[in-house]
């Protein structure tokens, strides 16, 4: 459904990213669109701006996309990816300051009820508060 906020998961590890996305799909269901990416352009640990952009494009809808990241470079690269694609995007993209797995499940649960991007981000960020 395109009337839910979509989730993008960006980890240094492709396995972590896929695992987190699997948890979201299994626990929350298919109605929230989830995309993920992990690993650098050579397949090692790291993040890849091009892959992050592709993941965002894949799930972007009018209600926007909430991005969950793991450590340092994932956040910096995600910010860079979002800035570089600012002109082409249909909806808003926000980074959530939340743990990647728990934040993704919380964000998707909130999104499944049709919540706004702001509400989805707050729910993800609430997890540790």
């Amino acid at each position, binding site marked *: 459904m395109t009337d839910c906020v979509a989730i993008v998961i960006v980890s240094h590890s492709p396995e972590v990213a896929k695992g987190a996305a699997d948890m979201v799909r299994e626990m929350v269901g298919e109605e929230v669109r989830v995309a993920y990416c992990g*690993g*650098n*352009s*050579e397949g*090692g*640990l*790291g*993040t*890849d*701006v*091009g892959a992050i952009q592709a993941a965002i494009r894949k799930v972007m809808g009018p209600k926007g996309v909430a991005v969950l990241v793991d*450590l*340092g*470079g994932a956040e*910096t*690269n995600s*910010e*860079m990816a979002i800035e*570089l694609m600012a002109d082409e995007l249909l909806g808003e993209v926000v980074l959530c300051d939340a743990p990647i797995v728990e934040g993704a499940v919380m964000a998707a649960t909130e999104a499944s009820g049709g919540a706004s991007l702001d509400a989805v981000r707050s729910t993800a960020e609430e997890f540790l508060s």
Partner: protein
Amino acid sequence: MAPDLVRRLREETAARIAAHTDELTALDQAIGDGDHGFNMKRGFEAIAAAAEDLDALALGPALQKAGMTLVMKVGGASGPLYGSFLMAWGKAMTGDPPTREDFAASLAEGVAAVKKRGRSEAGEKTMLDVLVPVLDAITQAQGDPIAAARQAAKDGLETTRDMKATKGRASFLGERSIGHIDPGARSSALLVETVCDVLEENP
């Protein structure tokens, strides 16, 4: 400015980073996650390989394109940091060839972009501890700006040894980051040296 300046910068920076990959890796293993050497090598190899795209460009557009290459290829935090640096620097560089004033003013935009991207300032054990003093040296130099930049890079790098990291992965180590020079500052110093070398042979 010599017509083959972009080519020389492209080749020499890649060669210098490749020659110091192991050193950067060792520095990053001490206080980071050990990927800085290979990330930088991969990024500058990609720039070196983009000869057809880069060599025909003026310095400003070439820097922008090289920055975008780093952003897309590096994979660690250094990609967006160095990438933002080169993109902002190149974008602000209007002259072809740039005057000394244009070079310094545009470099200041590049340094500002690194601060913004890293949400950081000099004094936090990062590449900014080299870039900020180098910028200041070039802006304020009475004599030879290249010599001033070299010295500022060397001194700036050394100041990171006694700093406690508060940004990036090294910040997890807190006090234990003291005593190691910062790998990002080291790669910045290497690049400054290389650019100085190239500019001296291509006045």
